[in-house]
């Protein structure tokens, strides 16, 4: 039993990283309707921004901040300089997916070409080990979980109680109607990219800390579980992404106690398929399908 409790604790750490990433991914998709497969590589770029700050003497909090800022700026630039021109020319969903894949490859291989196939480590220390009953965490992992909780609460408050949150929900629900109601949808979309990018950056730095090392390909390697968490909750639904991240994180770790650990990802994806059989649009999508971003 203690092994299961410990595995749940480990799953919470995985879920925290996934939640940061999946909520950012799904928030951006919900508002802009672009399936941004360069998301993982923006995570990587954010980690390198954080790495640069640590080389200048910055600590963990500065590294996280640099990752968030780096992710936000790069996401905004990607949208303004690459995605929007294609959208203006009428590129549709499938075409945009190819554009985002191209962006992903360009970012990844730019880092690979510049830095080589080298492993890097964020020099932020490992943190002390904290034992909470059968669960074991490092202080860094506790910080990541705390940050995820705060970020999720922040997203909730913004979407539920602020004008920009309501504007995002309106834009996600019907952009044309939102624009005709006087909502500056262009600015709302920019803010969605910035917020999504900031979460992406925080997730990237958190991932690099939990992995111990990172490379030019680290972010893209984790895109699939991020998308899985988002899909499980219902694409475009931030609360669904939170629940999806928890499910993927905890199921994968707990399943490793009972079955061969090599199948723990399979276990998580089996749950994903079972959920989608019952609720084809994800856990939250049907609840709030008529309301754009759930709130």
């Amino acid at each position: 039993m203690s092994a299961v409790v410990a595995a749940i604790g480990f799953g919470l750490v995985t879920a925290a990283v996934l939640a940061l990433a999946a909520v950012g991914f799904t928030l951006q998709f919900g508002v802009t309707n672009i399936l941004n497969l360069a998301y993982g590589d923006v995570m990587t770029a954010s980690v390198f921004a954080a790495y640069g700050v640590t080389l200048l003497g910055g600590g963990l909090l500065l590294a996280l901040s640099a990752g968030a800022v780096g992710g936000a700026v790069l996401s905004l630039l990607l949208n303004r300089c690459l995605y929007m021109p294609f959208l203006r020319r009428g590129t549709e969903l499938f075409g945009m997916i190819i554009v985002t894949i191209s962006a992903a490859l360009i970012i990844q291989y730019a880092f690979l070409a510049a830095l080589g196939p080298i492993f890097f480590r964020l020099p932020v220390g490992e943190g002390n080990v904290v034992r909470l009953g059968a669960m074991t965490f490092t202080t860094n992992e506790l910080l990541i979980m705390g940050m995820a909780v705060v970020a999720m609460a922040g997203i909730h408050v913004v979407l539920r109680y602020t004008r920009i949150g309501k504007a995002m929900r309106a834009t996600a629900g019907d952009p044309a109607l939102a624009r005709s109601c006087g909502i500056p949808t262009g600015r709302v979309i920019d803010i969605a990219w910035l917020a999504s990018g900031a979460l992406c950056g925080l997730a990237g730095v958190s991932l690099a800390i939990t992995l111990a090392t990172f490379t030019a390909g680290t972010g893209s390697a984790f895109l699939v579980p991020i998308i899985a968490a988002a899909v499980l909750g219902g694409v475009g639904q931030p609360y669904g992404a939170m629940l999806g991240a928890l499910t993927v994180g905890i199921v994968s770790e707990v399943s490793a106690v009972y079955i061969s650990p090599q199948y723990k990802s399979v276990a998580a994806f089996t749950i994903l398929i079972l959920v989608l059989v019952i609720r084809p649009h994800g856990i939250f999508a049907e609840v709030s399908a008529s309301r754009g971003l759930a709130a």
Partner: protein
Amino acid sequence: MLTFQVAIAFTGTDAPFGPETMAGCIPAAKLINDGGGVLGHKVQCQSTNTQGDPADAVPAIEKMLATTPGYLVGVLGPSSDEASAVMPLLEEAKIPTFPVTGQPEFDKNASPYFWRTLPADDTLGYAMAVWAKQKGYTSAAAVFGNSVGGQAQVPTLKQGFSELGATLNPVIPIAEGLGSYRTEVQQVVAANPQAIFTELDPQSGATFYSELQQQSTSGLPPIVGDQVILEPAWLSAVGGAVGASTLLNTCVAIQPYAPTQGAAYDAYNTALLGSAGQVQKPDQYSTDPYAMDPYDSVITMALAMLEARSTNPATYNAHILTVLQPASGAVEVNTFAEGKAALTAGKHIRYVGAIGPVDFNQYHNSTGSFDAVRCGPNQNTPVGTISAADVAALNK
């Protein structure tokens, strides 16, 4: 221009394989060209990226066979990632191939163009078991990636360790490339093994051993790995995660015996260090058997062409055996220049290169003894040896 293709992963999880293999090919080509080339031809090394995946490797090899610039005379690679898928293509093309795969499925290879000069993974499993027993370990955990290459030595490791009276528990196959292995780490910690046998890719290894270091109250147990964990990328990733000095003190790698002295080694290392313009940080490969082996393979093929007086792969292929095998009256040569001079003088030769003597069996496989070296860059001095006889005693 005669072309040797390095057909292996240059991107993906096993991306370090490419530069490592190329680090053997380039110095060999340099020495051959400096020595006047082969039958009036210069030689070159080209890369073909298999991406470490059969689905990508097959079209890459087909393209390589169709479009190689110059005249394709030999292939270095593939690795276990893609060998099963691409070896039939290379055999059909009648191209001599020196693979970097330890897969047991090639233990009874029937292709005349397949030449494996490094030990099979199943043999390595026995060697790891013998080493652990020599150190007095009676219980150990096994943590291996669930790839074809990662799992290849596990059955013989289990069998060998058991036959030596020791217990292997737990045996954990790892799904590589995940974000966390904390649950697997906890299983290892709970078993309290005296040592851990391992082969994981660099990223997964860094994550696993970093988490093990955090969860274990007594620090990292001794780690016994294979040659994969001596690759610069692995040492960099895992050393960065747990501390390079910690890794050096807790970890040994069992690798094919590769002497780091003598005329053959000196020629290899001098040419390697002189290839800094083409090989990034060449000194990292100075004692790397997986760079020394492709170096020897290129020299071997060049000498075989000279002996056959032909650059036609289908013709010179048979001479690979005769320039490597011991034979009465054969002159031992350690460099391309020595071999070329001896062949020009009409002598029979036996090439003994940087990796040491090669002695093929009927299946074109060669097995020798093993070294145990500490897990750090350029660990020249073995901390122990596993004899071919000890391995053979388990490999009945």
